[in-house]
């Protein structure tokens, strides 16, 4: 394998840095890990061949500092940089900076990142490729009059979104024209402050929608899909539980949305691993494009479990120059996988963050069970970053089998010294709607109001 002996620089931390490390090592690569002053003891730093300190604990001064990270990568003698997710992973300037430094960025081109990062442009690219989009404003809206006019063909309710936004940030919902008049100036001011760009757009809001997303891999010319994931269980627009494949989706609908996603990936010359996110209206059997994420996603393991494809390894090989080595027909869907995100938060106390020192750690294993994590006994979790500790992933013959395995794996998992979201998943497993797959993106918040998690 041509990658053996090459050096990969990990510009990230936490569980994804561990995940990327393992993929690089399995390819025979040497790994250099970036770490802030607060991350010297993290698992990914211990597993790396070398570590480079990139600044103080605050992400803005370390993991988000383009110049510092690029310089550290160059000075380390690395051949390529893996950005993980979050931080600089979808920053076109970072990708360009890495390339200008003579290194390979493990991701798409800066132009693709920039284009997909602009939600209005991404929507136009989706439409051009035949990807279904929700009724919405054509292009950016600069003022209230244009928004009111747009409602005539879109209908109500609508979501007001920032053109430069993403990840659910700053979205407002207008049910009436009065709402719109009140919310547009607020949204504009906030978008200007948060993103330096006050451009807005409107999109029809599907009620009781499910979140379904399609995993793609592309080599810049050709692309394949690795089927879809259902990520409808969300709290504050953050996914907490993901599955593959989507529950109750007909083969025809699956084929339609996956083929459309491949068409879009090929139309934009996509390179690496990417995800097209959709809202799915089950009553009308319609998909509406939300956005394309130009990075590996937190929930990628469920797609790996049902396809047998190592997505992180694949994105490294592709971006290092290897053309896709398989065809769509070689990607097969087998069984059902579920992932739950284990966060250092107290579900019995409003999901209050709960950093601490890990003790009495018991990680589940066995057939069809995987735990991607940065935890080890004695690890002091720094308070400076997000609360994700790891992801418990199970794979079964079908969904019922996967749910049984999840139940057993949850019971076998112990994480002492912290509060975690594990009790939330025990409670959700006992719920009839969750068991039957009757969920949507608003489901979990309402469910939590009705089913508070008891203190342990």
């Amino acid at each position, binding site marked *: 394998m041509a990658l053996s002996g090459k050096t990969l620089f990990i510009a990230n931390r936490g569980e994804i840095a561990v995940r990327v490390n393992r993929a690089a090592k399995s390819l025979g690569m040497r790994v250099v890990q970036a770490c802030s002053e607060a991350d010297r003891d993290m698992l990914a730093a211990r597993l790396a061949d070398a570590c480079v300190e990139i600044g103080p604990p605050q992400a803005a001064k370390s993991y988000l500092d383009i110049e510092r990270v690029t310089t550290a990568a160059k000075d380390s003698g690395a051949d390529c940089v893996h950005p993980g997710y979050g931080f600089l992973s979808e920053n076109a300037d970072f990708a360009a900076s890495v390339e200008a430094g003579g290194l390979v960025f493990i991701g798409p081109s800066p132009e693709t990142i920039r284009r997909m990062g602009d939600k209005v442009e991404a929507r136009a690219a989706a439409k051009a490729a035949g990807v279904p989009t929700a009724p919405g404003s054509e292009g950016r809206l600069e003022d209230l009059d244009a928004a009111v006019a747009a409602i005539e063909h879109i209908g109500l309710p609508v979501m007001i979104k920032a053109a430069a936004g993403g990840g659910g940030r700053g979205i407002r919902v207008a049910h009436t024209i009065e709402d719109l008049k009140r919310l547009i100036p607020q949204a504009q001011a906030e978008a200007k402050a948060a993103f330096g760009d006050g451009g807005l757009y409107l999109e029809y809001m599907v009620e009781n929608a499910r979140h379904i997303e399609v995993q793609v891999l592309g080599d810049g010319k050709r692309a394949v899909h690795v089927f879809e994931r259902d990520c409808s269980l969300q709290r504050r627009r953050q996914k907490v539980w993901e599955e593959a494949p989507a529950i109750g989706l007909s083969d025809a609908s699956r084929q339609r949305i996956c083929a459309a996603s491949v068409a879009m990936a090929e139309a934009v010359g996509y390179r690496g691993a990417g995800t097209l996110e959709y809202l799915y209206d089950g009553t009308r059997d319609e998909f509406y494009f939300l956005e394309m994420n130009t990075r590996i996603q937190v929930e990628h393991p469920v797609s790996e479990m049902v396809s047998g494809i190592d997505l992180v390894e694949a994105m490294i090989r592709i971006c290092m120059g290897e053309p896709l080595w398989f065809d769509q027909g070689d990607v097969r869907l087998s069984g059902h996988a579920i992932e739950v995100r284990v966060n*250092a938060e107290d579900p019995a106390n409003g999901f209050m963050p709960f950093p601490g020192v890990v003790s009495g750690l018991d990680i589940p294993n066995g057939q069809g069970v995987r735990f991607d994590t940065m935890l080890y006994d004695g690890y002091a979790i720094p308070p*400076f970053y*997000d609360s994700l500790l790891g992801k418990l992933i199970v794979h079964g013959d079908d969904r019922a089998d996967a749910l049984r395995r999840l139940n057993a794996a949850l019971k076998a998992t112990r994480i002492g010294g912290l509060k975690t979201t594990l009790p939330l998943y025990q409670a959700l497993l006992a719920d009839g709607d969750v068991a039957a797959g009757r969920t949507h993106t608003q489901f979990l918040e309402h469910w939590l109001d009705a089913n508070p998690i008891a203190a342990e």
Partner: protein
Amino acid sequence: MTTKEIRSPLPGTFYRRPSPEEPPFIEDGGAVAEGAVVGLVEVMKTFHEVKADAGGTNARYLIENEQPVTAGDVILEVDG
């Protein structure tokens, strides 16, 4: 007169200001009322207010803006 200490209840990043454009919660040398917000601690990307459990005068911050704190660190001293 005694010196009273106001401590951070949480580990994280300490902020003296509600947002970068606004003035600090407490002016150097100013007075602090019991229960007043004296700063924010960002822990795992969420923000929590630090409230004064004692009031006083001649307030001094001991932690710089945007610096890491651990739970129990003294953030502010006042004379009371």
